[in-house]
């Protein structure tokens, strides 16, 4: 449907001088740059359709023992010396999370999306409870957790990998 056709249809439905005037204004507004912008906007909204690969499993399947070791190593490296500190722990937490994500991406398991979550809790005699549930493909998706404990705090890292084709 070209723009002129759309406008013709609209014109058929509209009655009265006022609507005619509005239509003329609309036609003037739709310059070439506007049309290209509209086209790109539509292209973005349309979901990209890929060709079939007929492959149901990833080539390089997620191996959780590798990820667990990596995550544990990163945690112990970064947190052995650190003491809990209100200000620095915030950036430490974010940087650990990004490092773990980068390391997991480097392991290069194909067709996986990752979610990495890191918790740092100060030890002050309080109780804390962490629970997770998920709705996913039990055969292909999995999760890994790593813990690091020091005198002043406890750090917990969760890595969840979801298969995506």
């Amino acid at each position, binding site marked *: *449907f070209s723009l002129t056709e*759309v406008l013709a249809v609209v014109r058929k439905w509209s009655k009265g001088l006022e609507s005619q005037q509005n239509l003329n204004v609309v036609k003037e507004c739709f310059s070439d740059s506007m049309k290209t912008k509209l086209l790109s906007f*539509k292209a973005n*909204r*349309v*979901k990209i359709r890929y060709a079939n690969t007929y492959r149901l499993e990833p080539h390089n399947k997620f191996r959780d023992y590798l990820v667990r070791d990596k995550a544990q190593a990163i945690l112990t490296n970064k947190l052995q010396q650190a003491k*809990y500190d*209100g200000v620095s*722990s*915030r950036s*430490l*937490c*974010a940087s*650990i*999370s*990004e490092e*773990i*994500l980068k390391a*997991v*991406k480097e392991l290069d398991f194909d067709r996986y*999306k*990752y*979610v*990495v*979550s*890191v*918790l*740092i*809790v*100060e*030890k*002050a*005699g*309080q*109780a*804390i*409870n*962490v*629970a*997770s*549930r*998920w*709705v*996913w*493909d039990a055969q292909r*998706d999995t999760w890994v957790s790593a813990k690091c404990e020091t005198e002043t705090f406890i750090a917990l890292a*969760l890595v*969840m990998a*979801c298969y*995506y084709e």
Partner: protein
Amino acid sequence: MDDFQSGDETSFVVDEVSSIIKEAIESAIGGNAYQHSKVNQWTTSVVEQTLSQLTKLGKPFKYIVTCVIMQKNGAGLHTASSCFWDNSSDGTCTVRWENKTMYCIVSAFGLAI
């Protein structure tokens, strides 16, 4: 063929999810004070309720819901998460809730299939 037809809603709607989470927290731990024996039950019920409501939305998504309940003791808690996914279709929503005796933090991640 209608050019300006909007496709079906397959993107993560943060407001909807956040209201679902708030409802689940309120109904599970609403007016209760921290009780060590019950915390386990509370975390699982918050998470299970959230998850069941999310799946009822009927969208083609995989969900991950994490709940942390901590007693108020002046201690600090930091949480960070990073994700490797498709920004246009996937999203996350985190809700922080507290009462006089405890903090509750619920994060929900939705990944498009």
